[in-house]
């Protein structure tokens, strides 16, 4: 019985050691851990957005004609669209002409490992606590768990590691720009199929100006031999980020993909409008995990990233499964609904989310589970934590199509309030067109009690440690869904994000 405990804790220990570096950064905390900007030279597209900007980006990347045509089509569509007034968000006007749409590190290295990366960039990674696993592997530590990192520094992939081992397994893991050139048929087949070009204002904009991102293809029957991981970071001042991710899991395959982001401290709001598309064929499974820590703005709500992301997964095949797990602690404004379209019979969609808001942050996040397949099932676990003067909304849609027999959904939405100047809202939409569906929705709102605080403090934890412990306990059901190396990072992010919210 206790052997298991031992393993658990030893694991924790190892994780702790692995994270020593990240911890050091945490210990040196000022008000925003990852708020710095580094001096890597940038190559900019001219400020503003017009057809020439789109051509410039496409040209810079040496894209084929079809890709340019696709972008231009999207750009014209976007021009005719109106900026949305969605959701419960208070968004200042974004001046799309006052931003740069493309920036890449000057000397664009083609490297096989992070070893060869510009030390300045490595130092940035180090500050982010990224090298945890990566450094272990690169240092040749026996038994180190493998994580392939396609590091996106600003807009361009600067290094991809483990490519060979992945290639042996037949896995394609590329920056999307490379994939457009190397695997045009695959990319063309799926790009824009899950999130159509006209889907929404920000998705359309992304189609026109996406700078880089990741493409993953797992062939039939292949279990991807490592966790795939991309770290995003917004670096150049005033550079909107328009990442594009496309993951295709062919029949019977499995992949776990990790995405993490931090952003440096800046005064200007920065727009981020990524598009992520996932496709799972028969018996395939995609696990997509995000730990997101973009700069949320200062204590007055100044600065910070605007995060309007469109993430959608298509369970196209029978018995296919897509899981979204996200830990959101950053951004000034988050607007994000990772969704599953469950077309396959017996397909499964999952959404596990922790969204933490502090100070003046606004988050409107949730999911959409669109059940079209018979016996399709979905689970939604959402944990919202609000502190300061922030506003945190869960917005979720469960839709059951007329032909979808025996659909099941379980939704659990819990909100935790710290203090009484913050807000938490739960907005479930349920649309059922088939009477055999079983839909369950549970929601709770709670506060950290004085009893809990004193109990934890009496055992030796200081105020911030106590809050962090209780909050992590609250978020446990979601955190345990994360891959190991992310779980620890996520716990720390929650703690950092709450600093100054007590006492």
């Amino acid at each position, binding site marked *: *019985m*206790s052997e*298991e*405990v*031992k393993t*658990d*804790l*030893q*694991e*924790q*220990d190892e994780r702790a050691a692995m994270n020593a570096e990240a911890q050091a950064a945490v210990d040196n905390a000022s008000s925003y851990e990852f708020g710095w900007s580094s001096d890597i030279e940038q190559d900019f597209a001219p400020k503003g957005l017009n057809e020439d900007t789109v051509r410039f980006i496409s040209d810079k990347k040496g894209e084929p004609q079809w890709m340019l045509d696709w972008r231009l089509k999207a750009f014209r569509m976007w021009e005719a669209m109106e900026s949305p007034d969605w959701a419960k968000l208070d968004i200042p006007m974004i001046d799309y002409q006052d931003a740069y749409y493309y920036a890449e590190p000057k000397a664009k290295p083609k490297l096989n490992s992070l070893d060869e990366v510009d030390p300045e960039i490595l130092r940035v990674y180090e500050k982010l606590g990224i090298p945890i696993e990566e450094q272990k592997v690169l240092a040749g530590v026996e038994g180190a768990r493998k994580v392939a990192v396609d590091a996106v520094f600003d807009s361009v992939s600067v290094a991809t590691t483990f490519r060979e081992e992945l290639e042996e397994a037949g896995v394609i893991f590329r920056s999307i720009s490379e994939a457009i050139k190397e695997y045009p048929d695959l990319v063309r087949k799926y790009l824009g199929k899950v999130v159509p070009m006209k889907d929404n204002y920000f998705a359309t904009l992304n189609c026109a100006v996406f700078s880089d991102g990741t493409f993953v293809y797992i062939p039939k029957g292949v279990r991807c031999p490592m966790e795939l991981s991309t770290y995003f970071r917004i670096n150049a001042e005033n550079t909107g980020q328009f990442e594009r991710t496309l993951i295709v899991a062919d029949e019977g395959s499995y992949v776990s993909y990790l995405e993490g982001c931090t952003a440096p401290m800046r005064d200007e709001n920065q727009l981020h409008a990524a598009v992520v598309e996932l496709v799972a064929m028969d018996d395939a499974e995609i696990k997509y995990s995000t730990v997101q820590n973009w700069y949320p703005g200062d204590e007055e709500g100044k600065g910070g990233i605007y995060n309007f992301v469109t993430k959608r997964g298509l369970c196209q095949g029978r018995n296919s499964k897509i899981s979204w797990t996200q830990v959101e602690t950053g951004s000034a404004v988050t607007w994000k609904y990772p969704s599953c379209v469950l077309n396959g019979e017996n397909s499964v969609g999952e959404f596990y989310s922790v969204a933490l808001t502090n100070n003046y942050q606004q988050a409107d996040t949730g999911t959409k589970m669109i059940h079209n397949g018979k016996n399709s099932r979905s689970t939604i676990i959402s944990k919202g934590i609000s502190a300061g003067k922030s506003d945190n909304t869960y917005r979720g849609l469960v839709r059951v199509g007329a032909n979808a027999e025996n659909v099941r959904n379980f939704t659990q939405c819990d909100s935790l309030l710290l203090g009484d100047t913050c807000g938490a809202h739960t907005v479930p939409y349920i649309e059922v067109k088939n009477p055999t569906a079983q839909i369950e929705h549970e929601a709770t709102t709670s506060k950290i*009690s*004085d*009893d*809990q*605080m*004193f*109990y*934890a*403090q*009496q*055992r*030796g*934890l*200081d*105020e911030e*440690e*106590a809050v962090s*412990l*209780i909050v*992590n*306990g*609250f*978020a*446990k*059901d979601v955190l345990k869904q994360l891959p190991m190396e992310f779980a620890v990072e996520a716990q720390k992010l929650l703690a950092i994000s709450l600093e100054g919210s007590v006492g």
Partner: protein
Amino acid sequence: MLKIENLHAQVGDTEILKGLSLELNAGEIHAIMGPNGAGKSTLSYALGGRPGYEITSGGVNFDGEDLLELDPHERAAAGIFLGFQYPVEIPGVSNLQFLRESLNSQRKSRGEEPLSGAEFIKLAKEKAGLLKMDMDMLKRAVNVGFSGGEKKRNEMVQMGIIDPKLAILDETDSGLDIDALRVVGSGINAIMRKPDKAVLLITHYQRLLDEVKPDYVHVLADGRIVKTGGPELALQLEQEGYEAVAA
């Protein structure tokens, strides 16, 4: 070890401790008995530094230090442990995680090295064994779904792991079955009956005092210690009641 002098404490606008004085030396076990609402739990909270329990006058010295100057977690690190009358649930946080973080936090503020996972597990196993508590219970979330008696036993496992200098145990016996009471009693003796430690045992019943023999028994009524005696005082109280004895 602990010297409380003329302590006045209030909750909101109500004065609850009204000039309480008490002294404990290392190696001693003191029992506090007294009617419901007399201020026994308030005393334990005041010593623990619970927010909302305002000390209006008087002083508390612990091991030569002004205890009232310290934050609650600093008091814990200084060696004060409260066994709660109503232990608190913390969902999603396992007992092991809770205790390990707590203990290591205390060790850190004392300038000691943190315990590794393996060292901690060894310690936890030993103390759980002492209190005859299944290790599986320690993997569960703190007090969540624990029965009343299990919660109390868990408090004592925590005390064993944290190994304080001074334990203030607030009705640890209530809610325990007869066998559990014996186990908890001998647990308290094993952990705390040492020359460099002291215990303040708040209880309503003689049964616990049969297991953990006190050196002194005090009667706390209306916010003060109104009578002090040896173990025989508890027996007398049990027979005659507070009204008769403390009048």
